[in-house]
């Protein structure tokens, strides 16, 4: 299976690639885009700074391996630009792994045979949109991550690959809780790819009629969620 990590930076791409590139049968590309249309100087300064910030043993060797095998592709334009889409198509990837802070248009999504996977930090179909981790806590519903194939809408892609319930009880703030959920992405993408390669795999349906779109949470409610997280659950009750 040919897989491309669609990243906002080389460092972010390598982080995800490290988790999935030792999966048997998976061939990984790292794609770094330029959605903000930064100048070359700004862009490369940022790339180098992010690489330095995420430095850990072996990262340079891994980076060199991707460069040497032509599996690190740096796009000068955004992923939705026609020239980028043409390059994406030529890679003939089955799956894209979303790691860039962008919304995709349909031509970009369809450049991947199966589509682009997103690790959404809420449980679908109930929680679409923004601040869904906070809203789940406030409404007393299970929290976690859903890995699904995106479409051009906001978390409306129909094919769910996996859902993992991850309780909030060990996090004492909204910020820490969201960080913990975001950090699950590499592990869950790995699980999702394993599931997709299994012959018995079947998608679950993301039935949008069973959920709502949520929006950025106010400071007032975020403060309330912080308090809820600090108090934690009482065992054995709902």
């Amino acid at each position, binding site marked *: 299976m040919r897989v491309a990590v669609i990243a906002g930076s080389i460092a972010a791409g390598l982080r995800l690639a490290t988790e999935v590139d030792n999966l048997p049968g998976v061939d990984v590309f790292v794609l770094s885009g330029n959605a903000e249309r930064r100048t070359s100087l700004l862009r490369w300064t940022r790339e180098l700074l992010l690489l330095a910030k995420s430095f850990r043993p072996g990262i340079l060797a891994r980076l060199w391996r991707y460069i040497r095998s032509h599996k690190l592709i740096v796009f000068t334009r955004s992923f939705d630009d026609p020239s980028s889409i043409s390059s994406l198509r030529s890679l003939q990837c089955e799956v894209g792994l979303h790691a860039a802070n962008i919304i995709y248009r349909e031509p970009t999504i369809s450049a991947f045979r199966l589509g682009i996977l997103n690790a959404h930090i809420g449980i679908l179909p109930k929680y679409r949109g923004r601040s869904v981790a906070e809203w789940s806590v406030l409404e007393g519903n299970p929290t976690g991550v859903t890995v699904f194939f995106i479409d051009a809408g906001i978390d409306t892609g129909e094919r769910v690959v996996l859902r993992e319930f991850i309780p909030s009880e060990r996090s004492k703030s909204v910020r820490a809780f969201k960080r913990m959920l975001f950090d699950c992405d590499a592990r869950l993408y790995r699980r999702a790819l394993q599931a997709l390669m299994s012959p018995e795999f079947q998608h679950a349906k993301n039935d949008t009629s069973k959920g709502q779109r949520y929006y950025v949470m106010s400071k007032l409610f975020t403060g*309330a969620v912080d308090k809820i997280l600090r108090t934690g659950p009482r065992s054995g009750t*709902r």
Partner: protein
Amino acid sequence: MDLETAHSRSVPLERREAILGAALRSRRAKLRKSWRKLISPGCLESLGPAASQVEALLSGCNTARDWLLPDQFTWLSSDEDFWGCLQAIALARKIEWRPAEVAPAPLSLSTFKKLTTAESFQLLCGRYRCPLNIAAPSELEIAEELLCQLMVTDRAKIEAGRPLDAVAVLLRLNLVGIRALLARDLRSLDSLNYFYEVPQRSWVPERANFRLLASWLCIYAQLLSLTNGWKCASL
């Protein structure tokens, strides 16, 4: 972890309600002190006889009307016009409404989205002459679109410092607030929280529509007085 276990590990309802209630009460207390910064004396004066009632509602104890509407109502009629109804709702006064004999033709979302700001303003004031109808089941798509416009389009403009039509935003806030009052929808209430938290000078111009500004704050004050009964949807 399965769904059952995940549910068992969430914070119990009574504790969440207590924390949410405390947050709403603290914001209500803050609004009681701060509303005069949002509504200038000149603006208050321009409201005419309603000024003292607006002042009493915003400065006084918690007041909120519990609207007992028929479940799944189709459409409501009132003899008052849009501004009369809106003022009554904002001031927690009774409205003489009755079930309408005929509901208006459904408004398609795609048609609504194509309207200009002025057309949309006119349509909303006309269609929701009795603004309680924004909470009718048939209006769910439009109500969701208004919420989306506030929290995506308008919010993006405010955060980017781009100009926006404050009167249109105020109308949306009023209608979404009324929906929050009737449907006890936390997301709708939170959009009012968000716009209260945004520094007003960044989006409310000197010459905003004072009636809409005052009614928005009065509806918000009522919402903050409702400390329980908010809907928490379950999976």
